[in-house]
């Protein structure tokens, strides 16, 4: 019992049962537990009606799975580790793992620009946008009215011709002229009609899905609503036949059928004309992986970029660590005045928000007008040769990262028990030997996990490339992979670049990248485990 006293002075003394503390603890815990679980359950119940209403069964299942999991974990006394791990794990599953799984799913599709929608949607859009205005037909000022409900219809259009102010009433059955006395007309628009409710602009807008499809047949086409108070006459020129999967141009009878081109299909006529540039989302199996692994340009790019990525991450960690260590050993001397000031100033680069530093640095490297060349008198085209661009990237990353390493190393040095070093000094070891044999290994044990974390961060340091060089320089015959591109910046360019989004393909690359980083992580994990054992 006596051994516990240091941590809880309140429980000290002869009383062997520090019950007050314990009681208070459990009651608070119980209240927190009940409130927390109640909140989770309550939220699940609260959003369930909406989910059921919108038929989102997957969402509903996930919500309740979480609620049940929370209950199962916290209501009972068992599963102690789970109580601690669950909150973070749930967040991780929801906002990292689930998107990763969805990404893997997308990697087997042709998802990208031109293939974002389903085939049905695409066909509906192609047909709907084929309406051609009847050239000489008048425009009408339209008033939408209903004898039924303002949300469901049926809707009637009261139309005033903008040519001759003649009045019409239009329904799906056709157009009929009406007399001026039948309705009230103000400012050339029908504002009231007996037996009808006139829809307000908001109501027209809200019921647009129904109203826009209302076509009042005429001899030369159909009158269609346009916006909230106008109608025009036009004809749909394309028709889709589901049985034959054919789009037909009703003006000249041209037939368009799906023809495959690359990873997608287009409705194409017999003489090779496409009815539209729109294609649709389709499953392509493992084609994207096949392309990534077999296309010779991509494979070469990938290998070259992979090597540079590893080099970049290694150099970034190595240079920042070396400079940080050098500064730490140099400045860690109690005889020096102003140590705190040095530390405060040297910290500034790390405290500056990273994206700001990168944007500012990118301007420094301009050959003729940049700060670096003008301060040093050099005449280097920094971003025009791969070597110098890489140097610039590493230099900038050094600036951004060395303060962190400096502080870490300072701390680690100060934490090394001085008696160890004193013993070595007595044994006659020189300063450097002392450092090499004693200080450095001890320091390494402390900072190794940080070095691994830093490597991982730099391996995927998108900002460092995207905001600094944008991957430059590029070979003119290969605009997709630049000299300073690392895997992540390359992937992002493939996915969202100016060449058009290739999301399916980029997802496949992401998955490959994920596997690759996994392997590297596993190797590093082994390495750190060795270090752990040493410790």
């Amino acid at each position, binding site marked *: 019992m006596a051994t516990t006293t240091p941590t809880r002075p309140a429980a000290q003394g002869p009383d062997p049962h520090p019950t007050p503390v314990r009681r208070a603890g459990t009651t608070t815990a119980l209240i927190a537990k009940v409130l927390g679980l109640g909140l989770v359950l*309550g939220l699940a*119940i609260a959003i369930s009606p909406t989910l059921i209403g919108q038929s989102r069964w997957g969402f509903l299942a996930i919500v309740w799975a979480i609620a049940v999991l929370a209950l199962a974990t916290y209501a009972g006394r068992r599963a102690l580790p789970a109580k601690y791990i669950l909150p973070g794990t749930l967040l991780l599953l929801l906002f990292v793992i689930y998107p990763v799984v969805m990404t893997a799913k997308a990697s087997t599709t042709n998802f990208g620009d031109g293939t974002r929608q389903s085939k049905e949607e695409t066909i509906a859009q192609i047909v709907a946008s084929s309406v051609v205005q009847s050239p000489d037909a008048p425009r009408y000022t339209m008033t939408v009215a209903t004898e039924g409900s303002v949300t469901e219809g049926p809707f009637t259009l009261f139309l005033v011709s903008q040519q001759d102010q003649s009045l019409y009433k239009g329904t799906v059955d056709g157009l009929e002229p009406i007399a001026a006395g039948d309705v009230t007309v103000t400012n050339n628009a029908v504002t009231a009609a007996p037996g009808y409710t006139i829809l307000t602009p908001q109501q027209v807008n809200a019921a647009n899905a129904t109203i826009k499809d209302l076509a009042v047949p005429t001899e030369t086409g159909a009158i269609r609503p346009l916006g909230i108070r106008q109608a025009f006459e036009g004809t749909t020129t394309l028709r889709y036949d589901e049985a034959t999967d054919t789009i037909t141009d009703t003006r000249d009878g041209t037939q368009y059928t799906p023809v495959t081109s690359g990873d997608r299909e287009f409705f194409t006529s017999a003489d090779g004309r496409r009815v539209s540039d729109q294609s649709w989302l389709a499953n392509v199996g493992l084609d994207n992986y096949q392309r990534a692994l077999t296309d010779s340009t991509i494979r070469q790019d990938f290998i070259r970029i992979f090597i540079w990525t590893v080099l970049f991450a290694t150099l970034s960690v190595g240079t920042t660590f070396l400079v940080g260590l050098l500064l730490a050993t140099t400045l860690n001397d109690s005889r020096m005045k102003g140590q705190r000031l040095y530390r405060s100033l040297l910290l500034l680069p790390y405290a500056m928000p990273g994206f700001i530093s990168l944007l500012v640095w990118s301007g420094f490297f301009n050959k*003729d007008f940049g700060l670096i060349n003008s301060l040093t008198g050099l005449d280097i085209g920094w971003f025009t040769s791969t070597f110098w661009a890489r140097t610039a990237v590493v230099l900038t990353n050094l600036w951004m990262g060395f303060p962190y390493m400096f502080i870490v190393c300072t701390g680690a040095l100060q934490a090394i028990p001085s008696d160890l070093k004193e013993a070595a000094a007595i044994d006659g070891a020189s300063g450097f030997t002392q450092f090499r044999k004693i200080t450095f290994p001890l320091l390494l044990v402390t900072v190794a996990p940080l070095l691994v974390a830093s490597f991982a961060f730099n391996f995927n340091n998108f900002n460092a490339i995207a905001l600094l060089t944008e991957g430059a320089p590029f070979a003119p015959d290969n605009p997709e992979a630049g000299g300073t591109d690392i895997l992540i910046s390359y992937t992002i360019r493939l996915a969202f670049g100016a060449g058009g989004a290739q999301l399916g393909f980029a997802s496949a690359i992401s998955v490959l990248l994920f596997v690759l980083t996994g392997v590297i992580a596993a190797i590093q994990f082994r390495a750190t485990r060795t270090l752990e054992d040493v410790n």
Partner: protein
Amino acid sequence: MSPRVLVLVAGAALLTTACGGGDTTTPAASGSSAPASSAAAEPSPSGSAAPVRSNADLVIWTDELKAAAVKPIAAKFATDNGITVDVQVISADLQANFVTANAAGNGPDVFTGAHDWIGNLVQNGAISPLQITADKLSGYAPISVAATTYQSKLYALPFGFEAIALYRNTAIAPDEPKTLDDAIKVGQAAVTAGKVESALNLQQGDNGDAYHMEPVLTSMGGYLFGKTSAGDYDPKDLGVGKEGSLAAAKKIAELGEKGSKVLRRSISGDNSIALFASGKAAFLVSGPWALPDIQKAGVKYAISPVPGFAGQKAAKPFSGVQGFYVASKGKNQAFAQEFVANAMNTEASMQAMYDGAKIPPAMNAVADKVGADNPDVKVFVEAAKGGDPMPAIPAMQKVWEPLGKAYSAIIGGADPAATMTATGKTIAAAIAAAG
């Protein structure tokens, strides 16, 4: 203890549900209540009855430059129709953001953008065609209507032009140069005399800039895409790598860093305008967006269309047209159509657009009125009318980056003919691969 806890939890759950009152907006995550409520501070004064997505009755996306001009027009539209309108500024990558958001049903109803987006937007089914009478369209410059018409359908209501012209520092070059060679000669003399640092600022940067190089390419007889019989750009007829482009490449190499050093990769979008504005460049190839900076800096300048090289063809810059689009999956399509086809489509609105954003107007009446007392705007409208509409076909996306990077390489000293030929092949392959 477990059963007791369960009962208590159930009680607390009921309480939560009751307090929520079926309101599904209770913050779900611990600690996130504060951000949730601050997000709710987005203006939504209408109190509209829509159960979800109560944003506004019309949502417009635009960039910062145009927002100031759109807002008053939108406000008037809101008052006229008794609705709420929300104008949102999208600071980066409006097109990509729009396509993604629209596909997810989360986009705006109306947005502004350049006409060369149309091909990509159409292939993604992201925009709806407009139905505007030929009568009304005749009020706009024909090239602006042609640019916003894609495969015989009008997709945007044009409001402004973007084209590049030649600025000259009149203290260095008082007279309008007849040819680009003249301009370069005057500029180089000024550099030699130590009066300026750069003869001609034609921004390229390290990754090149095919847009600003277009006058050079066209003057030397190059082109990007040929045209079909119907007048649309033809992705199968690629001009890069063909004769004219090779002549242009040779010219660029002569002017490049291994030649007369007029074209330099260190002159980029970051500094091109600023150098001219601070009097350090004799000439500048840029668009109307450079005007405010140059005027503010107070340097004496004049503008003329970019001339061609001596003995060569006329230079044709790209004509860009800015327009209003109706999103295909907006929540308020009726208001969107109403806003674009009627509210925007008036001289007053177009005048307000010019007053707010200072983009050279596409509507003839406004252009005439503004041009009468603003010669700069007149030059830009003329430059746009004399150019070629920027190709809007999706294949154009495969051109920008490779061609820009080829220009940059040639300026740096790469073999002009070989580079241009290789780039032509790269682009053609990319177009073919995209189907």
